[in-house]
């Protein structure tokens, strides 16, 4: 049940900096996710915390104790590996009681601990089967039970749900969160799946290229992303390039988009002439029959329609040749057709403006 703190942590592999001067605090009993595209350094950060690799510089604290020189076996962490890493030469049961046994417990004590954790993960059958004979979901449960039986206070999960079927995954991720909460554990969950991170985390750190871009609750990250990348990686966003031509009386800025269309946007801190990117969530755009010309109304042609069940997704090519995506509830009933000319309203209150990235918009959005 410890707090985990890393300070100015850096890990280099040769010329590659996998974790770049990261400072982060994960609170006691928090369920925390490290989210980012593959190669962003999230797994390296998790392994540094577990002590499986040694940092190039910086400090790691677990519950106020500096653990840089503490070997992994003494950090009281439970690590659930992406491939589960169940020992192939031991049965499920022997895997589970491995931790107590290597800590010198006798058979009786180990058995007691084993039964306790198996009760928690609701695993009662097939305990004498070898890992090779178990299904993905079972292996997952055994891996978690094994980590818990070793007396872990800190549960580290490295893409541990990635190998499971979608259905099993959705079911098991809530169970793990609930278990961590019931046992008052601190959990750190590494994933590249933003919907998984959003669904189970108290807070999320979004990582890219070894750095942490933003830390916040799922809602904060969705509603107030403070970078183009976070706006793009969490949920979905439209990005329109333009430059600031001035301010209006309310203090909002006026942006001239490509081909001269002018729109109003929140945030007055940009000076005239600066290049910016206007970002809007697809569900905030309004596309309706009978929209009138006016402020922040642009027009275009519906190019593609995707029916997604509860919502319909329209891809619209604006007259300045940029594409925007608008998502409408299916039950609104006001449906458009492919090839239809339409107007799109961009409500000012949902606009977010970012400075135009130095490396270009395309590079900024790339998840590589």
């Amino acid at each position, binding site marked *: 049940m410890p707090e985990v703190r890393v300070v100015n942590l850096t890990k280099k592999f040769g010329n590659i900096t996998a974790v770049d001067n990261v400072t982060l605090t994960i609170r006691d009993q928090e369920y925390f996710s490290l989210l980012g595209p593959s190669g962003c350094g999230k797994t390296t950060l998790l392994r540094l915390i*577990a*002590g*499986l690799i040694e940092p190039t510089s910086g400090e790691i604290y677990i519950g106020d104790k500096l653990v840089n020189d503490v*070997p*992994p*076996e*003494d*950090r009281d*962490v*439970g*690590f659930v*590996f992406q*491939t589960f*890493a*169940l*020992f*192939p*030469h*031991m049965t499920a049961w*022997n895997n589970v009681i*491995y*931790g107590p*046994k*290597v*800590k*010198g417990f*006798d058979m009786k004590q180990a058995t007691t601990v084993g039964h306790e954790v198996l009760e928690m993960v609701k695993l009662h059958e097939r305990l004498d089967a070898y890992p090779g004979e178990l299904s993905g979901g079972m292996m997952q449960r055994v891996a978690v039970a*094994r*980590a818990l039986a*070793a*007396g872990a206070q800190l549960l*580290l999960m490295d893409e541990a749900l990635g190998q499971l079927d979608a259905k099993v995954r959705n079911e098991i991720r809530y169970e793990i969160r609930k278990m961590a909460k019931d046992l008052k554990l601190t959990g750190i969950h590494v994933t590249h799946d933003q919907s998984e991170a959003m669904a189970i985390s108290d807070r999320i750190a979004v990582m890219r290229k070894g750095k942490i871009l933003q830390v916040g609750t799922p809602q904060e990250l969705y509603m107030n992303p403070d970078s183009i990348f976070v706006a793009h990686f969490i949920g979905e966003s439209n990005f329109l390039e333009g430059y600031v031509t001035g301010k209006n009386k309310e203090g909002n800025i006026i942006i001239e988009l490509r081909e001269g269309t002018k729109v109003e946007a929140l945030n007055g801190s940009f000076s005239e002439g600066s290049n910016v990117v206007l970002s809007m969530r697809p569900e905030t755009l309004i596309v309706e029959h009978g929209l009138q010309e006016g402020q922040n109304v642009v027009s275009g042609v519906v190019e593609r329609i995707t029916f997604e069940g509860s919502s319909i997704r329209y891809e619209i090519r604006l007259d300045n040749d940029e594409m925007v995506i608008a998502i409408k509830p299916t039950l609104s009933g006001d449906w458009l057709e492919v090839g239809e000319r339409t107007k799109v309203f961009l409500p000012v209150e949902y606009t977010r403006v970012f400075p135009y990235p130095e490396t270009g918009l395309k590079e900024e959005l790339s998840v590589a």
Partner: protein
Amino acid sequence: MTERITETLDKLSSRNVVKYVVYASAIIIFFSLIFIPPIAGIFLKWDNIQFILEQPALVNRALGAIQNSFIIALTVAALDLIAGIPMAWLIARGKNRWLSIIDTLADIPFIIPTTALGYSLLLFWSGSGGVSALFGESIVSTGWLLVMLLHFTFSFPVVVRVMVGALLDYKVEFERASRTLGAAPFTAMRTVTFPVLRPAMISAFILAFARSVSETGATIVVAGVFENGSVFIQNIKTQFAVSNPALYNGAVVFASFILITVSVGIFITIRLLGPKLKLPLKRVRPQTERKLSYKTAERSRNTVILAVFFALILLPSLFVALSAFEAIPTPTFTNAISGSGIWSDYWQSLLLSYGVGGIVTVLNIIIGLPAAIIIARNKAGKFMSSIFDLLVNVPLVVPSIALGVSLGIFWTSSLALPDFILLVLAHLAITYPYFVRSMAAAVERISPDMEEASRTLGAKPLGVFRTIVFPLTKYSMLSGAIMVFTRSVSETGATLAVTSKLQTAPVLLVNWIKQVVPASQLDIALASGFLVLFSFIILLILRLVVGREEKY
């Protein structure tokens, strides 16, 4: 023109009849050339056994010698594991850049023809110029201790090679998981890594055992009056082959029969019981095991193993080079280069050795490839293929002199085959498992998906082999071929058994050392030196080839 031939062959290969014929002939060739002759031959002269049974003294001598063979082989294989695993661990896990050099050095005793190696050890341990000079007397004189040292030396690289490979393939994730669950490094190694690597340890043990039981040439050189099974057969040959052929045949058949049966028995026992042998996770003592995991403990282990390697293995193996250099400014060197006197025989024998080695290598590739594919892809059905896999190993564990005896009887009793053909057949039988095993392992590493993808894209079976399997396994094929070649060049026992007219280089060297042919110390040292030199060149090629393989 060649394109049209490949096209025709490609088309042919998709016909079931052709596939059937190719795989069936691979199996027929295996049984008729490799498997049956080395076993069936002795039964053709079974009747002669009565002549030795009439002489209890000789029977006892044979049994004693055979017992020595197995005691030495089992002890040496166990010692090899004890010394070889820490060494392999150091090479596979160490971070020092000098380790790749150590890795290469570890192969040296494997690649030097054992006879030259034996002579080198003889000079080092008991010659007047070796370590003995420091103490004024022979430290280890010829006899069982020197035989043990010799066998330990040449089988050590086998264990290191197998274990390094296994450690590199091993998923370190298991060990990491064990650490996060509270195990100290030593505990993790003991409870997780070693049990997972048990199959590799078993095969390393079998290979070391087989090498030791088979070796003849170098053992003769260092044995003195000591006899093991192979030396006994050779001694009987010099003693009785001419004076009492019936007794000679009886003794040889008797000894070969016991050697073959016991070897195969031990091999099957280890193969069957080894995997079932479970070391239960007994109670762990965290404090003690933690101490064994300390960096100081690890460092002292590494120091000890490197000291053992340099002092007991590398230095004695290369000691002959020193004497060979001494020979360079002397007339011996000019004689050697100009090939005068006994040296003309030397170059001829070298030519014969490399010629037989080359032929055997080519034959192995032709008949071994389909066999490897049968094993790797279960082409003969799952059950039959695994039986085949097991049988392929038999020539490996049969002591090569016994194999030669039996194979020689088998072929000469029905056909009057010339000695050269017999020599090739014997070497083919001995080297066959090496090529097939390494190729089968390489083919197994290729996912069947890739072959299937190639088929769905329109390739015929032979096309799949040309475009997918061959490019992905060509380095394994090359290193397998080099292994076959060096094994053949090194082989003494079977050569002695099948021919007395033809002299390969190691046989000639044995004759020089035993003074069957009068040769000076300088002659012998220089002759061994050349063999070491050529082996180095082969080792260099091997390293370049295997080094390049890693990009896949």
